[in-house]
């Protein structure tokens, strides 16, 4: 019996094509990827995206544009005086979207109040606490007895919005990214890109990349295309990687431009088209998101999980040791007055 080598790339398989079962030596497990695919599609995907950035950078508009939905139908924007009192909030909205039979359970975690205060020293404590909490919860559920319906609310990816109005990263940007780069995959995004000319955009991107390197910030890196991929795919991956950080424009308004209706922003001097790659990197960001919503990102996550688990084990051991110490001391000195410390 000859065992055939097959490539397990899901994206290349066509679900309806079966190899002729009469071929000698054919067992049939070449159909496995199709089965996995079908089960995944039935089960649906889960993705938690966190968006962080100052108010007014177009985060909500971009999310709505990316997922062609309206995540914030009854939004009230607070005034400056109200912002003075507020601390950073965490708001998670979940939406179920479906495209060609594939279900996606998307959770967007918003962080209103970030970067608003006059003193932003504490503004990322809440966010980090939230991320840690999700990890803890998942770990706890996974170690539990009933593991059938674990909900994965861990933050898979964080879009960090950089203001296009500055000359690069601000001290707050650097501090925040350094605080979370080991916990979450960071995708830096330059918002409201239509405020920049092409030259300014290139300059800003380069400046940001330089600063990221200078401060040793770890951002999410798309995996390189493998050597057996076709040239087009390799080229696409190369282009994608070269455009980071993506500078995007979001909009769900349909504007008439060049005879057709496109999503865009209408200015007196012209129309900025969201899906035009010459105008901004929206399409690139969307492509990356699709690539991201699969194994690659999760591998990093598994590693982080294991680290968290290890940490937890260490803490438990430390606690047990401390307990033993106390009991020993209790036995020598007071003889039972301390009782049992749990």
């Amino acid at each position, binding site marked *: 019996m000859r065992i055939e080598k097959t490539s397990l790339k899901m994206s290349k398989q066509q679900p309806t094509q079966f190899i002729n079962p009469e071929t000698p030596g054919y067992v049939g497990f070449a159909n496995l990827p199709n089965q996995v695919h079908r089960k995944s599609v039935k089960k649906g995907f889960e993705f938690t995206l966190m968006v962080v950035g*100052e*108010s*007014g*950078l177009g985060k909500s508009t971009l999310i709505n544009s990316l997922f062609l939905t309206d995540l914030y139908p009854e939004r009230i*924007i*607070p*005034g*400056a*005086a109200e*912002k*003075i009192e507020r601390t950073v909030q965490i708001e998670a909205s979940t939406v179920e979207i479906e495209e060609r039979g594939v279900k996606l359970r998307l959770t967007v975690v918003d962080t209103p109040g970030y970067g*608003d*205060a*006059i*003193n*932003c*020293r504490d503004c990322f404590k809440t966010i980090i606490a939230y991320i840690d909490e999700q990890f803890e919860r998942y770990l706890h559920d996974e170690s539990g007895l009933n593991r059938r319906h674990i909900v994965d609310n861990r933050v898979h990816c964080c879009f960090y919005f950089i*203001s*296009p*109005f*500055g*000359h690069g990263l*601000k*001290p*707050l940007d650097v*501090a925040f990214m350094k605080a979370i780069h080991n916990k979450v995959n960071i995708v830096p995004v330059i918002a*409201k890109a*239509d*405020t920049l*000319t*092409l030259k300014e955009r290139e*300059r800003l991107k380069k*400046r940001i990349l330089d600063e990221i390197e200078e401060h040793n910030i770890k951002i999410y890196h798309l995996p390189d295309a493998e050597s057996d991929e076709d040239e087009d795919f390799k080229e696409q991956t190369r282009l994608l990687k070269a455009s980071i950080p993506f500078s995007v424009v979001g909009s769900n308004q349909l504007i008439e431009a060049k005879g057709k209706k496109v999503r865009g*922003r*209408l*200015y*007196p*001097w*012209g*129309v*900025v*088209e969201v899906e035009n790659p*010459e*105008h901004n990197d929206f399409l690139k960001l969307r492509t990356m998101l699709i690539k991201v919503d699969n194994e690659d990102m999760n591998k990093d996550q598994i590693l982080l999980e294991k680290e968290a688990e290890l940490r937890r084990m260490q803490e438990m051991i430390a606690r047990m040791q401390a307990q033993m110490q106390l009991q020993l001391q209790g036995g020598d000195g007071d003889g039972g007055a301390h009782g049992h410390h749990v």
Partner: protein
Amino acid sequence: MSKGQSGLGKSTLVNTLFKSQVSRKASSWNREEKIPKTVEIKAIGHVIEEGGVKMKLTVIDTPGFGDQINNENCWEPIEKYINEQYEKFLKEEVNIARKKRIPDTRVHCCLYFISPTGHSLRPLDLEFMKHLSKVVNIIPVIAKADTMTLEEKSEFKQRVRKELEVNGIEFYPQKEFDEDLEDKTENDKIRQESMPFAVVGSDKEYQVNGKRVLGRKTPWGIIEVENLNHCEFALLRDFVIRTHLQDLKEVTHNIHYETYRAKRLNDNGGLPPGEGLLGTVLPSVPATPCPTAE
């Protein structure tokens, strides 16, 4: 004086206003420049001329304002600078051997750049303007206005105006200083409709419809700085330079400076500064008997 976070286009705008390279930053964007750790005050003086009229223009920039993680009290160095200029002038005024023309380094106008978020003012904007509208003429300006559509612009302006009003911030032209009815009607219109001016600045020229215009070139069109359909730069320029330049100086001298002077004299026990130490409380000294009063 131009104020606002880094990158809001302050230097470019000032250059555009005076059609010359009066602000060094914009002429050579230095990549090595980092955000300064504290607010710095950089004053550069120029003499510009038009139609035989010479003007000594001093542009004061404030790099570092609002850029830190903790921006508490970041307006203090600025307030201090403004008051120092008043102090300088005051000292010259009370000098016995007074110069004929006292060199005037006082700040006549402060352009405050608001970030075009489209939402509302930031807490920092409110705090700054609250403190400084009492010592200097503040003209709020919406920076980089090419980031907003016409609708967004008008909504944002309305919201900003309302916030300024609700928080009792009197920007220039202040209602209480309107001299007569004519002034009031003219200024009311500016206050309630045009301000804050939503501007775009540029020091580059492009060819549009056969003319050379100052603008910004993007893949989707050219934004013309002096085109009123695109932005309100021309309104700001006319307001600050062509119609209200003298008034800005007068309000600074007659009102802000006078307020400062009155406060200083009061603090110093009714004495002009120079007699008695400035800024310190004098211990009471028993009067020495006058030699002739025997």
